[in-house]
């Protein structure tokens, strides 16, 4: 099981609902495009690439260093289909994985789609177009661009997942302080997730995207031209804006639920009398130890070390953390959408047959 596929039970129902809601407008835009282009071969193309993406996730890729790893194939899907087609294809592949192979949950499907299909596809497309620019189709620059696009995309997806997982114990605990869903706060969830993705998973995605592009350059250049039909006119992105606005409006509702303080989790807080009292209150009157629990102290310092530089401002405040999560996800998406509306799009228009 890939760590990227969040199973049922890791995210609270409200987080799941919010991420379904956030994904819906993207699907709406993507489907609208598909419908508009339906007279073309788009339906079978998206379906087949979704099937490809599903199958390629099973490839064990030999990685530098003697290990093997699995890639998700976001990078290559985005290069071949463009961001909107890739979004649909990866979503469908994720749904089939969740239903048939138990990789990723049903309630968390919205989250997985948001992270991998939406943030992943948009990031990969934006990166690829930015880095490949107008380089010739057979340029080695495109191989590198594809690899980096895959690497960045999978890490952007992982970061979103880590943020979603990391806010769970801040917001969703029972009165005794028991985390009800994913138990690790941001300062553990982020490094735990990112270490694996910055190395192995990212490398696998790099190897797959770059390797396939290199193969296509010698054997099937047509696919690199962008198999997706060119758009005739930029379709309205309004549903997208509405959805993102909704997400931002809904965020404060999540904050209202954030009764328990983030500081409860911070080793430093154990020395702070006020928060000790709060923990005591929420722990059915059992006084917390005056010292940092040994295990927590040790592990937290390991995990938090790489983050120390930037974690200070938002990691201490749950409201800020929650808002940051929403903003980061939305920001990624918006940035990518803006990049995709740039000149790169028009250069594709003439390329499709």
């Amino acid at each position, binding site marked *: 099981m890939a760590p990227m596929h969040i*199973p049922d039970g890791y995210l609270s129902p409200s987080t799941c609902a919010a991420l379904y809601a956030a994904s819906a407008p993207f699907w709406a835009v993507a489907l609208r495009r598909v419908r508009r282009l339906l007279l073309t071969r788009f339906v079978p193309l998206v379906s087949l690439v979704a099937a490809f993406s599903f199958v390629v996730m099973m490839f064990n890729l*030999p990685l530098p260093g003697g290990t*093997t790893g699995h890639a998700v194939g976001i990078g290559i899907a985005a290069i071949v289909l463009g961001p909107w087609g890739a979004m649909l294809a990866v979503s469908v592949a994720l749904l089939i994985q969740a239903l048939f192979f138990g990789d990723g949950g049903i309630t968390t499907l919205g989250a997985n789609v948001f992270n991998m299909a939406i943030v992943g596809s948009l990031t990969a497309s934006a990166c690829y177009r930015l880095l490949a620019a107008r380089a010739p189709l057979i340029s080695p620059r495109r191989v590198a661009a594809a690899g980096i696009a895959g690497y960045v995309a999978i890490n952007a997806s992982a970061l979103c997942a880590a943020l979603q997982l990391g806010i769970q114990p801040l917001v969703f605990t029972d009165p005794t302080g028991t985390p009800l869903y994913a*138990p690790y706060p941001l300062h553990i969830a982020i490094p735990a997730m990112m270490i694996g993705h910055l190395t192995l998973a990212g490398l696998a995605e790099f190897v*797959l995207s770059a390797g396939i592009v290199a193969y296509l350059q010698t054997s*099937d250049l047509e696919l690199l031209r962008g198999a997706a039909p060119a758009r005739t006119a930029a379709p309205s992105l309004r549903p997208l804006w509405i959805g993102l606005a909704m997400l931002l409006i809904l965020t404060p509702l999540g904050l209202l639920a954030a009764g328990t303080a983030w500081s409860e989790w911070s080793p430093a807080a154990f020395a702070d009398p006020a928060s000790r009292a709060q923990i005591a209150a929420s*722990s059915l009157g059992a006084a*917390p130890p005056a010292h940092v629990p040994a295990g927590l102290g040790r592990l937290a310092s390991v995990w938090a070390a790489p983050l120390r530089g930037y974690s200070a401002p938002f990691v201490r405040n749950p409201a800020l953390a929650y808002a940051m999560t929403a903003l980061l996800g939305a920001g990624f998406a918006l940035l990518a959408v803006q990049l995709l509306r740039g000149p790169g799009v028009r250069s594709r228009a003439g390329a499709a047959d």
Partner: protein
Amino acid sequence: MRAGFVERTLEDLHRATDLAVVSERIADGPGLLQRIDARVKLAGLAALIVAAAVARSLSVLAGLFALAFALALASRVPIRTLATRAWIGALVFSGAIALPAIALTPGRVVGRPLGIEVTLQGLRSAAFLVGRVETAATFALLLVVTTPWGRILAALRAFRVPVVFVVILGMTYRYVFVLLRSAHDMFVARRSRSLGLLPASERRRLATATAGVLLSKTYRLSEEVYLAMQARGFRGEVFAMDDARMRGTDWIAALSFAAFAGTAVWLGR
């Protein structure tokens, strides 16, 4: 085993095909859930998964798991299938993730095995995580192993999922098997003992070139399929039709699902 990537990939490809074939066999067989309309099952099992996600009580979670197990027995889903496809994977994966939480979660210390302070909150948190994952995975598995895929698609349409999305979903699942077969054949052709002697970069190139060939095939196939769709009158819009009718037993099943899910949500709030 350094050359093992071909073998391991072949195993994974086999596993995927086997899983689907086992599901379809169980779905064709007799059993309680097999007799229930797919729409009722889809909504009912989804409601139970949500109930498991909402529950703030471990005993309610245990009750839901017991219900899932009972439904599996009544639907003649082999324990082996449940264990290999839902339970063991979820336990190993989520168990490993939940384990450190036992000590990392602040709260009332209930023991110090090996000098690590285990907290009540940590134990409960781990139990919640593993319990939810196991319960949801079992319900999800019940849906796919007791319902033919075509019926699940029809049920999705009944719940207003856009037809074009359902068509893409159906076509994807259909071609997963064609591509699994293609990938399988290519890896079998590449299976050779001398592979282990190749430098790592060559093996990597071989693996990604195989993926590239598969992508080329995928693309050609999609073009052919498009022609085949046109030949049968496809002009851009897709239509679908459903012929399932709700019977008395389906209504009873719907009410039972609603009662169980409702009770679980109420008790577990």
